[in-house]
């Protein structure tokens, strides 16, 4: 099944710079962020692929000078019972990634979580608010440069 996905992606997006890798029969595709929405739409709607379920979407901080932040999409096809993983990366200076909420509705909250924890700006997201941390919180706690015990004073407690 993996090689079918690879062939179809190479045919449909002929001039795109994909990176394919396989580990223990799991296919991972690194996708340029500019075409992530189109790739997701295609993978969902192509008749033999039908990755109709986004089982998870999460952010990652690679802590590298280039391509620091990433988003990982885990897709599942209910018809073929096959899974693939997509990755896309963005720069620290420009942490923007196009949203996939138009493809899978469940991406709405997942992208809010990734924004809350890493500060990625999902462009086109209908409601990009914080998910877990208080609205007035100014930091992104799962970034590698965020101290474990937090920044003193950033989360106020009620007066004793």
């Amino acid at each position, binding site marked *: 099944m993996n090689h079918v996905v690879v062939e179809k992606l190479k045919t449909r997006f002929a001039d795109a710079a994909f990176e394919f890798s396989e580990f223990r029969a799991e296919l991972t595709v690194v996708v340029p962020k500019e075409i992530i929405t189109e790739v997701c739409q295609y993978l969902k709607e192509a008749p033999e692929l039908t990755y109709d379920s986004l089982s998870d979407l999460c952010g990652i901080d690679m802590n590298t000078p280039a391509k620091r932040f990433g988003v990982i999409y885990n897709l599942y096809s209910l018809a073929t019972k096959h899974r693939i993983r997509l990755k896309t990366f963005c720069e620290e200076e420009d942490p923007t990634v196009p949203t996939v909420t138009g493809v899978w509705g469940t991406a709405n909250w997942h992208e809010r979580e990734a924004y809350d924890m890493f500060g990625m700006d999902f462009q086109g997201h209908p409601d990009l608010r914080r998910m*877990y*941390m*208080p609205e007035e919180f100014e930091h992104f*706690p799962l970034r590698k440069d*965020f*101290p*474990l*015990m*937090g*920044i003193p004073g950033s*989360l*106020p*407690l*009620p*007066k*004793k």
Partner: protein
Amino acid sequence: MGLEQALGDSFLTTKLEDAINWCRKNSLFPMPMGISCCAIEMMAFAGPRFDAARFGSEVFRFSPRQSDVMIVAGTTTFKMAKVVRKIYDQMPDPKWVIAMGACTSSGGMYRTYSVVQGIDLFLPVDVYVAGCPPRPDNLINALLTLQRKVQKGESKGSSTAIIGDFTTHRHPVPSAG
């Protein structure tokens, strides 16, 4: 019943304070602030096997306005701290707080940015309970410890002494209408 047998037709003298505190300690209504897994043990504490009702802590009140002691059972995050404090502020004086479990007392294993490292940072705590989670027996022990404190008229949170002056309130009661 036991009293008549012991005293016959005689009578007993005591201070009004002691009598009121005796009544209070044997009718502590808990406010169940069950935030996470400790709440399961807190339910067992109230259930028939361990039966907190034996000690007069008969009924769990799900309204802070009708309760005497708040059992904070679970990991308290910074986001939840505001809620816990707001509920505590609605309890009428005199009031007490039991910090149940390691997370509530000290942050426990959650040594991280999002968890308050002990609710005594924003609440006056009367009794701490060790354990992760504590067994219901341990919570009963905390209740008995609290009863001894109530009999002595101790409360960390109430502004007034437990008995006597009801004219000053730490949190003024808004006038009706």
